[in-house]
């Protein structure tokens, strides 16, 4: 970036995804749009009630009435997948949102003010990073007991440090740029500088990372539910469906295949979007 003394770029608006975002990201975004619609419209789209037990259709195969088959209690797998997807996705997105909400301020503060504040803020962050992700979640769940809400906060706790670090790295890079110094020289307060100049320019990599993490959050939510420490029945979760499906694997593999497929496709979509956005929003390669 070349700047002369006369033309310091002033505040930058949020990085705009102008122009071709790349085919990857395009496919990913399209996929996410479809998936998002499915999640939101689940109650409308589901052909049956997810709880509707039908003795005649126990472990039934794929039919027109039940395109994804039926499970051990004769419930329609497609409807269950839609509702479970809705629930699991909400939790995952919620977790990443919390992680962003807490992680961005921490990362910005650490990167912008540096020195003592940086050390104080980053110590606990680094400690959290020293834990294997799932184990951290499990430790937190051990305190309160399993549940859907705990799952969301536990996943947020896993991703908060990662996002904080990413934000800190990009803040460090941005804070040393000329236009930030220029703003301060013009008398802008720290808060104003941060909000107007630092955050819009430093947030790109965090968004890239967050989009990828949404997919992984979904995987962890399902994993926790699968081992019985996440959402508890009757709260729906793709992980619980996978556990139930695993019990009847031989007789009704569709009960296991479709929930898993839902997760896989969603994660692929988030990864495509993240990778596609990376070129645009993370030119310095902070997220890898």
């Amino acid at each position, binding site marked *: 970036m070349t700047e002369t003394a006369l033309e310091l770029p002033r505040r930058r608006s949020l990085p705009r995804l102008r122009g071709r975002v790349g085919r990857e990201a395009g496919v990913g975004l399209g996929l996410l749009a479809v998936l998002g619609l499915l999640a939101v419209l689940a109650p409308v789209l589901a052909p049956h009630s997810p709880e509707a037990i039908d003795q005649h259709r126990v472990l039934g195969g794929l039919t027109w009435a039940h395109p994804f088959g039926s499970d051990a209690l004769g419930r329609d797998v497609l409807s269950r997948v839609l509702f479970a997807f809705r629930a699991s996705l909400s939790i995952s997105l919620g977790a990443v949102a919390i992680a962003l909400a807490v992680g961005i301020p921490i990362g910005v503060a650490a990167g912008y003010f540096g020195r003592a504040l940086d050390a104080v803020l980053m110590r606990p962050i680094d*400690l959290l990073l*020293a834990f294997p992700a*799932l*184990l951290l979640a499990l430790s937190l*769940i051990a305190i309160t007991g399993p549940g859907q809400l705990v799952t969301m906060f536990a996943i947020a706790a896993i991703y908060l440090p990662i996002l904080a670090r990413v934000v800190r790295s990009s803040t460090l890079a941005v804070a040393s740029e000329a236009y930030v110094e220029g703003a301060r020289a013009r008398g802008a307060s720290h808060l104003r500088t941060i909000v107007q100049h630092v955050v819009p320019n430093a947030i790109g990599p965090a968004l890239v990372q967050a989009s990828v993490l949404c997919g992984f959050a979904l995987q962890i939510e*399902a994993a926790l539910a699968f081992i019985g420490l996440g959402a508890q029945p009757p709260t729906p979760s793709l992980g619980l469906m996978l556990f139930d499906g695993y019990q009847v694997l031989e007789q009704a593999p569709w009960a296991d295949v479709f929930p*898993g497929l839902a997760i896989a496709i969603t994660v692929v979509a988030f990864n495509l979007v993240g990778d596609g956005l990376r070129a645009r929003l993370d030119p310095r390669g902070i997220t890898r």
Partner: protein
Amino acid sequence: MSPRGRYALRRVALAVPTLLAMTIFVFLIIRLVPGDPVRTMLGFRATPENVATIRHDLRLDESWPAQYGAWLGGLVRGDLGEDYISHASVSGLLGQRLPVTLELTLFSLALALLVGVPLGVVAATGGRASRWLTATFTIGGISIPDFWLGTLLVLVFAAKLGWLPPTGYASLFHHPVENLRYMTLPVVTLAIGEAAYILRTTRASMQETLGRPFVTFLRARGLRERSVVYRHALRTASLPIVTVVGIQFGVLLGGAIVIETVFGLPGVGKLVVTAINQRNYTVVQGSVLVIAALFIVVNLVTDLLYGWLDPRVEARLGR
């Protein structure tokens, strides 16, 4: 002391406060439980007498620093407390189950490296077809939940084909062949996901290395392309791979926890899940501690390995 020695010492020294901080964190788990953890733990078995006994055992009525000190003292002596539900020693339990988890994670890691590194090199040097193939494998491997993959493999290889057993375990040392039969599906399951990450890292690192001037100079000396890629470029490119392996081991441990449940393996992962479900806090504490410590140690080892491999470690001492 040689620069490598100094680097090693620094890394070890850095690991100690991390371990200590982690013990504090684990220590707090029981203490943060709302209500009376002992009553919750014992559940229907709770009587005023055994509650009082256990509270005394765990020194729950003393100040937190005192409790922590006593607990830490026990840790150092290898005493991780007692499982108040089964009346076994926690360290005994863990000692039994840790080898299973270690075998699962280490075998998976080895298999992932064996598959991921060569494929990554191929992806970096090959033509469009190999690049597309490996890109697909990478995205697939990362996106597919590993426990779901496990169930699918069970469906195909255990249920439909009957080649391998879906659950069960035999000790590696006593029944090696049986052990391999039981461990094949779990190890392959974990390895596939891991291989995808390793492939991606290898490809990126190789691509970057192959673009460097010293590679052109190697070719200018008339060395065969195979030697340039595998003997020279790969050696320099392998440093980031070492780092990624360290980080990924945490993911691997997490995956192992779930996979042990899928395949019914008697490892630490299954132990901690069961313990959390049962509110068996002392066991939770012990197993979380051990798994977390294992991760920190593995990271330390990979850091040391990196330092040993990197010829320029002297320049990096300021890191």
